[in-house]
């Protein structure tokens, strides 16, 4: 039994409360700062609630900054009177009839409407600029799905054979693989979240501005040669996996904030398309760069 995405479900009552909170929240101040990014084919803008919010974003997203028009916009505003501490972890409620996804966390509540390519976020008094990063991650996950791709948890590395996604959830070794790959001279695009998009030549693997442990923000992409499902093991080995194992494993790593049938069906279809179009293998590895010998051998 696995889960698609990582967020648990909120309730209809939570969504009703959120609807009211948005109605009651003060409007955004005029002239709030806007930060735009371009990640592969996705363009996303974030309207921040105050000037001080924007500066760290501008620095963090520097390689991905985009000043042109954006397909997706998320607007943040302060709502200091709301209390979100009953949501220690992120939770989602999807209103499939209206195409609205509500996201709750201890420091914000967000409303995302993929059909309008719009998102709004109310920030509590506890919220910091990291909420803007979360808002953009959520928007990017919907934008990627709409573009026939996905944001996926994994380490993205480019070797002389092309791009490889080392796919795994927290604790499976993404950052370890990233560190070892970088130390052995390979080009690490991310150790946290990669963007996979389909084009006429196949699938492309790209870096994103969404940081992991290594703090990487690399705006480059490469043709995707293969996907490796990470497993720490007693020795380095690349092993075949069937679609029945590969698809659920990949679905666990897709960044998905929609808990409605349509979003989940599209996500499942994406997993099937990936597995039919890209070689997927299981990588068992020890914490040393020797696993690359096995990868090179498997993709020789």
């Amino acid at each position, binding site marked *: *039994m*696995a*889960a*698609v*995405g990582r*967020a*648990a*479900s909120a309730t209809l009552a939570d969504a009703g409360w959120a609807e009211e909170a948005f109605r009651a929240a003060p409007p955004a101040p005029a002239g709030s700062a806007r930060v735009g990014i371009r990640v592969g084919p996705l363009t996303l803008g974030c309207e921040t609630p105050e000037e001080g919010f924007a500066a760290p974003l501008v620095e963090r997203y520097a390689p991905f900054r985009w000043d042109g028009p954006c397909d997706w916009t998320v607007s943040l505003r302060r709502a200091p009177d709301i209390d979100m501490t009953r949501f220690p972890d992120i939770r989602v409620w*999807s209103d*499939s009839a209206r195409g609205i996804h509500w996201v709750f966390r201890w420091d914000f509540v967000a409303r995302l409407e993929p059909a309008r390519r719009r998102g709004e976020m109310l920030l509590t008094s506890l919220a910091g600029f990291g909420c803007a990063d979360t808002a953009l991650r959520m928007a990017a996950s919907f934008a990627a799905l709409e573009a026939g791709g996905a944001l996926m948890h994994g380490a993205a590395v480019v070797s002389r054979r092309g791009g490889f996604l080392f796919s795994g959830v927290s604790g499976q070794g993404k950052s370890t693989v990233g560190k070892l790959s970088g130390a052995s001279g390979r080009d690490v695009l991310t150790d946290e979240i990669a963007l996979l998009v389909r084009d006429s030549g196949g699938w492309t693997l790209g870096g994103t501005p969404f940081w992991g442990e290594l703090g990487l923000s690399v705006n480059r992409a490469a043709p995707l040669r293969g996907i490796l499902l990470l497993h720490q093991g007693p020795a380095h080995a690349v092993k075949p996996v*069937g*679609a*029945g*194992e*590969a*698809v*659920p494993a990949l*679905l*666990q790593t897709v960044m998905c904030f929609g*808990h*409605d*049938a349509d979003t*989940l*069906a599209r996500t*499942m*279809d994406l*997993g*099937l398309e990936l*597995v039919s179009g890209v070689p997927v293998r299981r990588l068992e590895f020890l914490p040393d760069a020797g696993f690359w010998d096995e990868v090179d051998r498997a993709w020789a």
Partner: protein
Amino acid sequence: MPGPELLARKPGTVNRVAGDKTLVMIPEKRTLHVLNESAGAVWAFLSEPRAEEAVVDELTRVFDCPRETAARDVKEVLAKLDSLGLLVRKPGA
């Protein structure tokens, strides 16, 4: 006298076939269930409401196995699907 109880998939579930596995999800729970070949065959047959006996007949045919074996497997699969919240039961007409 009413007919036998009918079994059907829980409405709103999302499912896809991946190799020899069937993936089933209840959107609001977001949990992905991976069904093996025999459970997948039962699931596929339950695209319309069916009586348990009809499911047994179908599995006997698909897997070309003795009816008693199919009946035992179907009972186990249905109990599992039930425990996962993937089934609904309807009174027979």
